[in-house]
């Protein structure tokens, strides 16, 4: 059997095994490939970094465990950025599978930076009814969320003496695993003109670049790569604060070595398989069967 036939008849389990090796190798022995921030991610970072200490940021973490590797590192990095800079985040989610995951991120970051619930941050938890919740937030946070995630009445939470409605927030970060970016834009961001940065899964990134081009959103962090870029920017600017808080290296940055190697393998596989296909096709059916 010549090499072209061998490639075209390759058992898919061999390909899976190679992918597994390519993913596992850099996780066991990191290559520390460089991470370079794209202008779209840098714009989100700069938008947040320009805010003075004491500003308020709303983070809608609309994802669940299915997109954890791509989006939870972004939430972690954004929270680290907020706490290192003295910004007060309000965190909420529109995804029923999200609260436990998001609670973990919020409590971990708060513990690392010694932040107090209710004064330095608020976790509102999950609320069903996407568009209704978004419009509700525009009308008033306390009308929409009577209690936070820990069942504390929002009327008694100090942060809500400073922010009462969506328009009072200085910045809005949407971390989206699904189709919540457009509704947030339509129902809350466009009517109030609060600057919005978006982090999304890589699957949906292509459709959101139009909003960057149209300057409807400040920037876009796509998938694990976008999260790694944000981690890189936060670590670059707040290295001392992160070190003293004992924040370990970001999960997305660690995963990017494996991601890059798998991409190289996929691209090479596509080139080699297409080459083999066209060589076989040129040979014709008689010679192929001979």
């Amino acid at each position, binding site marked *: 059997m010549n090499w072209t036939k061998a490639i075209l008849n390759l058992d898919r389990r061999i390909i899976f095994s190679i992918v597994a090796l390519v*993913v596992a190798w850099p*996780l066991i022995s990191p290559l520390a490939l460089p991470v370079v921030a794209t202008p779209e991610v840098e714009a989100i970072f700069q938008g947040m970094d320009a805010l003075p200490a004491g500003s308020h940021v709303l983070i809608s973490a609309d994802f669940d465990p299915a997109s954890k590797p791509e989006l939870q590192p972004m939430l972690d990095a954004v929270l680290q950025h907020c706490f290192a800079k003295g910004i007060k985040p309000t965190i909420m989610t529109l995804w029923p599978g999200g609260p436990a995951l998001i609670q973990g991120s919020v409590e971990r970051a708060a513990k690392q930076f010694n932040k107090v619930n209710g004064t330095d941050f608020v976790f509102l938890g999950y609320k069903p009814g996407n568009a209704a919740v978004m419009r509700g937030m525009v009308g008033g946070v306390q009308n929409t969320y009577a209690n936070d995630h820990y069942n504390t009445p929002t009327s008694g939470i100090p942060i809500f003496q400073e922010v009462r409605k969506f328009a009072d927030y200085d910045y809005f970060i949407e971390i989206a695993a699904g189709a919540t970016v457009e509704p947030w834009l339509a129902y809350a*961001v466009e009517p109030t003109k609060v600057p919005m940065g978006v982090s999304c899964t890589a699957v949906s990134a292509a459709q959101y670049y139009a909003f960057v081009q149209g300057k409807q959103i400040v920037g876009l962090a796509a998938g694990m790569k976008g999260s790694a870029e944000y981690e890189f920017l936060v670590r670059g600017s707040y290295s001392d604060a992160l070190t003293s808080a004992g924040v370990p290296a970001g999960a997305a940055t*660690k995963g990017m070595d494996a*991601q890059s190697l798998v991409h190289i393998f996929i691209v090479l596989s596509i080139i080699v398989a297409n080459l083999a296909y066209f060589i076989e096709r040129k040979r014709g059916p008689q010679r192929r069967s001979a």
Partner: protein
Amino acid sequence: MGETLGIWIAAGLTLMMFSFIYRDNVLFKIGEHLYLGLSVGYFINVQYWNTFYPEVFSRIVYDHNYVVIVPAVLGFFLLLRLVPSLSWLSRWSFAFYIGGFAGLAVPFVLNGLLLPQLTSTLVPFQPATSAAANLANINQVIILVAVFSVLIFFFFSLEHKKLVGSVSKVGLFFLMLGFGAAFGTTVMARVSLLVGRFQFLIEDWLMGRIFRAG
């Protein structure tokens, strides 16, 4: 102890799901059924405590807000789709929901999505005073050509021949570029999920529990 047990269960279930890569087998089936059962149970629990209890039960029983009965009954009608003789009642709920939501969505979507996107598609050209301005102008031409040709591609009232056919082919080219980008990012997303699982298996399970324990 609890965390260690959780990590061992999660690692076992991950390997059970990965076993499908070799071939369909009983371990994969067990993992699949566990996942479905747990997900449904979890979501029923979350929806009950986050929606039904605070928004319906508490409001009626503790706040004596009986108006809530109306949407609650409409919600119950949706479940009647499971009863063929009463399934027609679900149409009332759908009519109310679709009518109300369309009324809410139309003005906001027009003002918040459609009009801003139209505006950013038809941006005036910049004076050609710098390389950046020239590049922005070229970008604007590409956007205009792409939008126009893709719209022609989906315009079916004219036969796609001669000029219309040529323009729709340009539209097809841009569509293929879009699909290619979407497919590329889809591969990237799926690889990220694989990397996430391997990170868990290697860092939390192998390094964190097995080799550390050893």
